[in-house]
Each structure stands twice: as C-alpha cells, then as structure tokens.
C-alpha cells in the first residue's frame, strides 16, 4: 500500500466462514468502535494460531484486547450484544452475491474479470496493481 500511496485504496470486507471467525469479525468491529480496528485486525492474524481453533474464542480475544489498551468490558459487551451481527451478515451476503466462495478474494476496480482468488505473492499483487494503473491512467496522461 505504501508503495502506491495516493493511487490505491483497499476496502476490507470481513467474510466469516465459520462461527469462530464470526466472533473475531464482530470483535474487530467492536475494537473499531474504540478506534482500533486495524490494530485488532492485524493482531488477529499475528496471533491466529492462539485462537482460531477455539470454539468460543471471545475470552481469548478479550485478553488480546488488553494488549491494545482497549476497554475490554466494552468490547466484550459489544460482541455479546450481537449488534455487529447484522453488519457481518450483510457483508457475507454481499460476498455470496459476488460468488465469493473462498478467501482471500480481491476485486480490483469493481471489475468481475479482475477477481483474484487465493493468496498471492506481493510481487504478483504489485504487478496486478501496476497493470490496472496503466489501464486506467495510460502513460503520458
């Protein structure tokens, strides 16, 4: 992203594939209410093996939230209230409309032909972004 500063925007659609991931998604959005969505998001990936096999990961995620100086009681009550559930379901439904069946799936500039499924190397993503930049902003313009 830094390499393409000012030229690229990433819009994240958490697409929970199982109940454990649903809890994590809601926790991330609840962390977002406290202004720390991205910090929590990155932490979920960094510590993935510590929570992703748990059937009920909320307590563990709340523990992690302490490290980010989040209000853990507020985070826990936010997740338990289920007020992020609709939002999560809406994103899931949106992904299903777009025939997203595995993650990660990327769409570049709303072009269904520019669908990138599966993990790609940084080099390949850079190439795809450059290709799209050249398409939308031909050289010399």
């Amino acid at each position, binding site marked *: 992203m830094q390499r393409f500063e000012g030229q690229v925007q990433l819009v994240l659609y958490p697409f929970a594939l199982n109940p454990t991931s649903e809890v994590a998604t809601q926790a991330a959005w609840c962390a977002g209410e406290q202004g720390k969505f991205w910090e929590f998001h990155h932490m979920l990936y960094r510590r993935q093996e510590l929570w992703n096999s748990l059937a009920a990961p909320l307590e563990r995620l709340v523990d992690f939230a302490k490290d980010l100086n989040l209000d853990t009681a507020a985070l826990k009550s936010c997740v338990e209230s289920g007020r992020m559930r609709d*939002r999560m379901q809406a994103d899931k439904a949106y992904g299903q409309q777009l025939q997203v069946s595995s993650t990660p799936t*990327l769409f570049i500039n709303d072009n269904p032909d520019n669908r990138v499924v599966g993990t790609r190397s940084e080099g390949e993503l850079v190439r795809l972004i450059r290709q799209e*930049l050249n398409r939308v902003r031909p050289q010399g313009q």
Partner: protein
Amino acid sequence: MAKKSKARAQTLSPRQQSPRKSLTPRRWRLKLVIGGVVLAVALGVGGLVRFLQQRDLAPHLQGVGDKHYTQGTAGAAVVIKEFSDYT
C-alpha cells in the same frame, strides 16, 4: 444370355454408383453443418450466460462501499475490495 446380362450389369453399374458417390459428401456436408450449428449455439449460450453473470456482478460490486474499513486514499485510481476470513 449370361454374357448379355453381365454386359448390362457392367454398363449399369457406373450409373447406379454415381448417385451414391454424390450422396456421401452431401451427408458429410450435412453433418458438418449440423455440427457447426450445434457448436455455434453452445458457444452462444455459454457467452450469453457469462455476459449475464458479469452484467449482474458489476452493479452489485459498485453498490457497496460505506461502513467499511479502508486503507489508502479515498478516490484512488485503483480500489481493491478484499474479502477475507480471520481463521
């Protein structure tokens, strides 16, 4: 008599064979035409299905964007929508 009939058979056979010879390529031509039509229809249906799917996808893709966390510059030339799962 036998000689006569043999001679007749010899003179008749080219006449009888000639329509058969012309039927074979005609049959092949017919098969080729039918095959071509079937292929064209299949390609057309496939293309139509793909077109309809994509026409359907594009408006869906353009519709949503609010209430989502983003990184990078708003209004950038390249917008990437990422669907990802935490597990």
